[in-house]
């Protein structure tokens, strides 16, 4: 089989690796800024699909299909993001006589429209968060009116949404009009659809999601949960498997609900059913289904030993699942830290530039999925996620200690990354005791500097030595030739000029 990967970055590299291990040929596509990206370098074939903006390259269905035809690919794997949850794309791929490595277009459509998904989950008996379920697009006044019934605090969400885009928390009636306007604008920009709905905000809830695998022969299994409660601006920051809040009994109950959810839409391939788990750890509510491979899929792979990308490719080839529910065991504890090109000390501003130095952690129990190499240029055109660092430990404490060690080994110079954020998290009492919810990072956490005097002394020594060197350089540079105030100044100060 020849597989075209309609994506870039670390996930394209991940899929190419699975292809290679299965003996499939891989075809990369790239925009002009990605000519030397790792996915292009790793693939068997590579096709240019346009200029840097995603709308002119990775979102161009016509060019991707053209590359598929030109390369003679049999299948297209969409990865995550870009076209991964675009039902029209999945349909066009099928219509072109190619295999879409993912669910049927109808399942993407049914789950992608969040309002429709809520309605079908209610029909299937899967619990959902209280909110609005109007079949038609609600106007601003209708949203305002129904907000009173749902109650505050609440969330305004985009029906086409995902990843926190087009979503706003609203604490009171006064904030509602502004939130609706902002959510509509963001939803229109991101999804070209500004249909909104309202859900009650479950305070103190955890974000727990269940991985499912379904083949085209009616077999559906779940691979347990992932804990994704550490979030910032509704973007996941760190994930774990298993969740410290989930007992084996709850896992079985939530897993069964996830399997029902998948069956309700005729799901095939790997998918993830997201739930909110309330603060008591007993009641859970369907949030949405991600009809694709997840960013955080590696933690499930590490703990279950199942290669999800290979399973997707096998299922896409029409084969039956070889594993049954009884085969799935959870061994050890895995953590994933998302390494973003963002400055955690400056309100997580995106950081761009050339990676001047890179040293990735390795050794026992460490897995790095990355798009980085020395000389790689991080551009602003795409998602800030540049790498994922995962560890597997025998237990949760063991995994935390291993993650600390791995983060300490990780060196990325030239761009700012979220490594310091994760170093802080790994030492945080609330994280270690697993006492956090989805609002924790934004309400209780800061990147304020440590007050450790030893660290301060080390910094003082390093900075003074560099200042000393710099002073020599400045004096040399400012000094015109011949005797001068500058030169005498330098000599008086005992500088090597």
């Amino acid at each position, binding site marked *: 089989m020849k597989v075209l990967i309609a994506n870039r970055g670390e996930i394209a590299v991940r899929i190419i690796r699975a292809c290679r291990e299965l003996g499939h040929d891989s075809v990369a596509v790239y925009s002009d800024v990605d000519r030397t990206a790792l996915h292009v370098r790793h693939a068997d074939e590579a096709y240019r699909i346009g200029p840097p903006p995603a709308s002119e390259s990775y979102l161009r269905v016509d060019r991707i299909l053209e590359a598929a035809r030109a390369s003679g690919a049999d299948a297209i794997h969409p990865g995550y993001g870009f076209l991964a949850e675009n039902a029209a794309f999945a349909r066009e791929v099928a219509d072109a006589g190619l295999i879409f490595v993912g669910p049927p277009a109808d399942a993407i459509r049914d789950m992608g429209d969040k309002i429709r998904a809520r309605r079908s989950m209610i029909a299937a008996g899967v619990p959902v968060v209280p909110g609005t379920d109007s079949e038609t697009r609600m106007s601003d006044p209708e949203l305002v009116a129904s907000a009173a019934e749902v109650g505050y605090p609440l969330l305004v969400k985009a029906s086409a949404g995902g990843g926190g*885009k087009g979503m706003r928390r609203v604490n009171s009636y006064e904030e509602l009009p502004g939130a609706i306007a902002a959510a509509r604008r963001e939803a229109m*920009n*991101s999804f070209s659809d500004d249909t909104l709905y309202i859900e009650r905000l479950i305070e103190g809830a955890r974000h727990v999601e269940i991985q499912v695998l379904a083949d085209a022969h009616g077999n559906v299994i779940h691979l347990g949960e992932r804990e994704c409660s550490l979030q910032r*601006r509704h973007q996941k920051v760190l994930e774990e498997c298993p969740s410290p809040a989930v007992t084996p009994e709850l896992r079985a109950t939530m897993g069964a609900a996830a399997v029902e959810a998948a069956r309700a839409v005729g799901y095939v391939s790997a998918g993830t059913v997201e739930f909110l788990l309330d603060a008591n750890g007993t009641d859970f509510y369907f949030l949405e289904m991600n009809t694709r491979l997840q960013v955080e899929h590696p933690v499930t792979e590490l703990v279950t030993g199942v290669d999800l990308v290979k399973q997707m490719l096998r299922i896409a080839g029409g084969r039956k699942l070889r594993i049954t529910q009884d085969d799935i065991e959870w061994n050890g504890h895995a953590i994933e830290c998302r390494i973003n090109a963002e400055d955690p*000390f*400056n*309100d997580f*501003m*995106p*950081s*761009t530039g050339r990676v*001047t*130095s890179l040293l990735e952690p390795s050794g026992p129990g460490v897995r790095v999925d990355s798009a980085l190499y020395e000389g790689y240029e991080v551009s*602003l055109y*795409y*998602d*800030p996620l540049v790498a994922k660092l995962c560890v597997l430990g025998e237990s949760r404490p063991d995994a935390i200690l291993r993650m600390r060690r791995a*983060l*300490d080994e990780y*060196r990325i*110079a*030239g761009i700012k990354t979220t*490594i*310091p*954020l*994760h*170093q*802080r998290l790994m*030492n945080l009492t609330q994280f270690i005791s697993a006492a956090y919810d989805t609002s924790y990072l934004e309400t209780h956490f800061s*990147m304020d*500097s*440590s*007050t450790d005097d030893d*660290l*301060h*002394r*080390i*910094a*003082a*020594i*390093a*900075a*003074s*030595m*560099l*200042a*000393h060197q*710099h*002073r020599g350089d*400045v*004096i040399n*540079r*400012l000094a015109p*030739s011949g005797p001068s105030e*500058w030169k005498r*100044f330098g000599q008086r*100060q*005992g*500088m*090597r000029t």
Partner: protein
Amino acid sequence: MKYTATVEDRDFEVDIDRSGEVVVDGVAHAVDLRPIDGTSLFSLIIDNESHELLVERREGMYYVYLAGNRLAVDVGDARLKALIAMSRKKAGETSGATVFAPMPGLVVKVLVEPGAVVSEGDGLVILEAMKMENEIRSPSDGVVRLVSATAGSAVNIGDVLVIIDASTDGLGDVAVEGSADGSAQEAGGTSTAPNGSAGKASP
């Protein structure tokens, strides 16, 4: 050479002699600092304790990234700073904050107009980058003199978005300069380049 290194609120007296011995607050240390990548990554051994750190130099400050911390270090060297300031003055630079685009992106919304009085931390421009909206805030109190950002336009890293006069004295000469398509050149004469001293390097 004696330096006063201020880390957060704590002062360290650091004396570096020609041989490389470093005395910190009266205690001598054997110190060996080696560059790794030639720009920002360093290996530092202090009395056989091994550390690795990223260091960034910006606007005369050193930012040391160490064990999940970013420590801002101000290395006091009063005489050198005075001389650099003098050479800048000669070069004809003026004061006033210029707000640059910290990243390439799309201007979603401009929140201020020329003449507006702003406080430190007030939002100036909303910039969309990497699919997220980022609010660019004012670095100081003052009066908006120039707004070069326009909603819907793309900007590059380092493009001037807004120029703010440090005090409210300049209210009189505000109106005329509010042109829409201003770019970096327009502000070139008025902004304070952080590395302004380097301009005088080659005679």
